[in-house]
């Protein structure tokens, strides 16, 4: 059986970090089927490209959800651009959401910051309940696990927007 006929309607959401990207695959609004954090220290782009392609080969998702990346610079901009390009080449639907669009979805439950949104996701999705990232402060860097929740927020935004439209 070909990979294309194996899975249908899966949504892949990815969010870049300083060393890689967090990703989540959903089959429904509250139904994640797989997730992870990809990172590479050396040959960063090459390894992350391969990781992303393996994900697409394995799950054949129908949709890729990303956060607006045009105002990003350097490696994370290149990474997002590459993800979007590969997804489009495979005929996937690509959706890019701005921060205000994501905040609008989670604003109804009073969550605005990335950490607050992660808290909401943790309470809504049991599979993520034990993966809560530590809070970012002035002296503590962002937890890589935050990227997982950022990606989940993108997928949930996609479901919310597509349901309302």
């Amino acid at each position, binding site marked *: 059986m070909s990979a294309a006929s194996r899975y249908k309607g899966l949504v892949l959401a990815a969010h870049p970090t300083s060393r890689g990207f967090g990703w989540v695959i959903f*089959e429904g609004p509250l139904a994640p089927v797989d997730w992870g954090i990809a990172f590479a220290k050396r040959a960063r782009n090459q390894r992350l490209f391969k990781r992303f392609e393996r994900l697409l080969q394995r799950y054949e998702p129908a949709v890729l959800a990303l956060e607006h990346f045009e105002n990003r610079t350097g490696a994370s901009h290149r990474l997002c651009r590459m993800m979007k390009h590969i997804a489009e080449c495979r005929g996937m639907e690509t959706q890019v959401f701005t921060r205000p669009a994501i905040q609008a979805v989670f604003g109804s439950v009073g969550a605005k910051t990335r950490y607050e949104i992660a808290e909401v996701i943790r309470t809504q999705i049991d*599979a993520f309940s034990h993966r809560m990232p530590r809070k970012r402060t002035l002296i503590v860097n962002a937890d890589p696990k935050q990227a997982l929740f950022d990606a989940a927020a993108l997928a949930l935004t996609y479901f919310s927007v597509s349901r309302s439209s």
Partner: protein
Amino acid sequence: MPHKSLRTYLRARRREWGLSQDELAELVGTHGSVISDYEREIHLISIRMLIAAELIFGVTGTDLFPALYRDIQEEVCIAAGRLYARLEGRTDPHSIKKMRLISGIPGRIKPFDV
């Protein structure tokens, strides 16, 4: 039967509960590499794995391995049709009993959308 996107939900359930492949293998009584093979559908799952997974995750085999159940149902249905065709026309009690069993199979099929 709700819509299913994946052929197997073993990996999804394992990760949902934060179990590593080795930990699940320990519960099932096998090796982590075997769990990896089951998750990637390299090997067909064993009866032991099926029963253990139902017990561990508290869901039915059809929820965990929808495509496997659907594939087996299809194969059994086709084979049943072949056997029924061979028995048709026979009037001995044995054949009539077998045909009664086989004709009940379509009614026992569960719908799958994988």
